[in-house]
């Protein structure tokens, strides 16, 4: 009698409609900073650091699952929850640090754009301003649905690193051995590289982004199963891309003893060993990753600041409806572009200090998260299980210890020099 009821919708379709937040967050994770870290790690230590991707994967998954769960249960962003649970002072401290760190992070992304397009012979004084304007338009004029689609396409492009790696003709047997039986070193450089890889995988702003994306999509606890898969896919995405970057650089640069400092150097250095095309593909991947993160970072930062302080925000709102949101977003892009375009800008110092700020922030954000995800008043029956708590706190303690070392390490290094 009743025909209008939709026929049984296959879970594939539900999954596809739920898909997005996890994969996008996972992909943004491989930003310019990440690609640099992985390239340098591969060039310097070959396959010896591949094993670190396993703990990085676990930590990433544990943290992101908690964010997704908090989002679907409460419908509140992480910034909202922190404000309501911990008051104005802690919130303000977190967000002042976050906005400074994210200007630094965004500057790194624009540096990635500049570097990758230099491979194709385009000056940064042309590429950076043009990309900045495009990024701005995409957010100001876009809406969540189209943006998400573009982001997902970006994510697919990141797989270009797989092509680069295969063209480098790596020794797969050697890679397998390196993952299964890690070759541990005890020198300072090696340890700081381990920390660098794990640290770059879990950045504080990602937690905010993940949770907001889940809410903006209107996902609920009944989608949990699919959300979990989405988060899992995102984490796999992150480590897969990282894996192939390390392999590409390990198979070529490391074998030939070439040391690099930047992701761009890797693209240049790849040419003689894997062909000009492999180098270009590598640069293309870097470009995509940088643009991708240059969009999401300022967006996410502006979004959660507005959320916490009660200003109108959201990509679906127009400039007049959400002035504070667009002002913040524009300011972050503007300052990071200026930083990159200043001749002889102290990029390395900026990177280090950004890393330090991220390092201070991460434990604060993670501890806030753990306290809230265990609060029955907030999470109801969906608080962490005991097992979840053990894994969670262990992950967080290790992360805090690592970021602490990561944080003081550049300071010590700088002090020594």
């Amino acid at each position, binding site marked *: *009698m*009743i*025909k*209008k*009821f*939709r026929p049984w919708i296959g879970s594939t379709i539900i999954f596809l409609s739920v898909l997005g937040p996890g994969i996008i967050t996972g992909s943004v994770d491989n930003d310019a900073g990440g690609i640099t870290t992985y390239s340098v790690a591969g060039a310097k230590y070959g396959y010896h650091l591949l094993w670190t991707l396993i703990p990085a994967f676990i930590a990433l998954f544990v943290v992101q699952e908690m964010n997704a769960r908090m989002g679907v*249960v*409460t*419908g*509140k962003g992480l910034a*909202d929850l922190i*404000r*309501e649970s911990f*008051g*104005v*002072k802690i919130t*303000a401290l977190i967000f002042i640090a976050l906005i400074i760190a994210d200007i630094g992070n965004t500057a790194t992304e624009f540096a990635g754009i500049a570097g990758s397009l230099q491979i194709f012979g385009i000056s940064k004084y042309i590429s950076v301003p043009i990309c900045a304007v495009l990024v701005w338009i995409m957010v100001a004029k876009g809406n969540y649905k189209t943006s998400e689609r573009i982001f997902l396409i970006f994510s697919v492009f990141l797989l270009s690193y797989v092509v680069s790696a295969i063209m480098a003709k790596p020794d797969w047997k050697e890679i397998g051995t390196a993952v299964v039986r890690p070759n541990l070193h005890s020198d300072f450089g090696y340890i700081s590289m381990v920390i660098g890889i794990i640290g770059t995988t879990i950045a504080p702003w990602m937690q905010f982004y993940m949770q907001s994306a889940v809410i903006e999509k*209107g996902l*609920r606890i009944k989608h949990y199963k699919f959300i979990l898969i989405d988060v899992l896919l995102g984490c796999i995405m992150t480590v897969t891309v990282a894996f192939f970057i390390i392999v590409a650089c390990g198979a070529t640069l490391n074998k030939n003893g070439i040391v690099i400092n930047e992701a761009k150097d890797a693209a240049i250095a790849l040419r003689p060993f894997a062909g000009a095309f492999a180098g270009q593909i590598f640069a293309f991947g870097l470009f995509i990753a940088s643009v991708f993160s240059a969009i999401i970072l300022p967006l996410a930062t502006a979004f959660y600041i507005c959320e916490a*302080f*009660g200003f*109108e925000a959201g990509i679906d709102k127009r400039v007049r409806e959400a002035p504070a949101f667009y002002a913040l977003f524009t300011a972050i892009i503007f300052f990071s572009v200026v930083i990159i375009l200043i001749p002889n800008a102290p990029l390395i110092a900026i990177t280090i200090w950004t890393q330090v700020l991220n390092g201070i922030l991460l434990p604060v954000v993670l501890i806030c998260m753990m306290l809230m995800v265990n609060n029955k008043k907030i999470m109801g029956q969906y608080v962490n299980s005991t097992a979840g708590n053990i894994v969670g706190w262990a992950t967080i303690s290790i992360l805090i210890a690592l970021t602490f070392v990561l944080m003081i390490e550049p300071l010590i290094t700088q002090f020594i020099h």
Partner: protein
Amino acid sequence: METRINGYNAPFFFSQILGKIAFNPDRTPAGRVSDFIVNVGTTYPKVIAICIKNEKEEKEIPLNQIEISSLILDIIILKEFFDDIPKNSIDFSESVLTLKKTVYDRQIVDLNGAKVIRVNDVRLLKSGNEISVTDVDVGYRGILRRLGLEDVIEKIVNVVKLFGLKNVSLYNQMFVSWEYVHPVLPKSQHDAIKLTVPKEQFNNLNPADLADILEELDYEQRESLINQIPDSVAAKVLSETDSKTTQELLVTQKEERAADILEYMAPDKAADILGDMQEEKALGIIKQMEPEDAEAVTELLEYSDNTAGGLMTTEYISFNPNTMVVNAIQELVKAPEEDIETIYETFVVENDKLIGTVNLRQLLISPGHKSLSDIMNKKPTTVTPDENAKKVAELFSKYNLLTLPVVSEGTGNIEGVITVDDVVEYLTRNWQ
């Protein structure tokens, strides 16, 4: 200045009192102020107790146990020793709420501005022996005050003003009077509390604004709010919210209430919503609806979403061709607003067959004694129920229609009417 120390009408902020030390009669510290309990039975809620917390416990101290003269709140002195004051002296089943847990730092609904706002501070007024809540502070200034930076920034702004920048807008005070504040309480509390906000306040809000508000609230608050508003308003609001939100909120309602809400909606909208639900749940709700509404909705459910049948409503005004103009106008005036979507176009029907249409203008300018068959438009544009929704939208656009009757293919019987608001979605989709 309004503030007169030890006098009447001394305004102060909640943030200035929260965390302050309260003293026993012998001036030994009793604990710190942790919350205010207010009675929302009046327009401006009165503070009835102050919560004091020390290492051991938290107690609600009734206001009459506190030295009120000290409540410019530089010093708070209890009339009895903290340890001697009984616990749980406040009856929470009355219209009381706690400021910190439900208002401070929370999102509330501003009924005047029709938006969701976050409370940065609460302003209270001491007047004689009473303290009442007057406004919530939602501006930058509240944030600065909480950060302890209000004075510093004020000095800076004063200096800036000396240089001629008189319109430093960052520093505007932004208060919302409690009159317009609607706190959206957690589930555990809202059943017990009768909020003072009169229902008319909600009736006065534009349903589209209220829908935006609803979408902006978190999941728990959405449920609370929809429980607090009358069925008729809920129906208007849920017709405007995006389909996901509508589904979520209706499914959380008891079937009886969901049915009551749907009865207030246009049948085509109700059918759309029910069609998106799980069949079992939808049938459960339809069973609870009034037979007449249930029948209309069930009929519409037979048509698929993207066809004329899926867009149309079955509630419209039709007349016999012999009806006199004057009588038709009388009928239109009596048409109940919630049932009939539009009166701009009426339909002339003979034995269920559509033979013409008459618009409001024609009715008003024609002599009262004429019959409708004399003035009607005899060749109205019509569609069949299975016509594609896009085509329908194109017809609306091409002929500048406000309504479009749907007639069955063979018999020419009128099945329903599509109004322009039902196709706006398809008209705008093209240029997005």
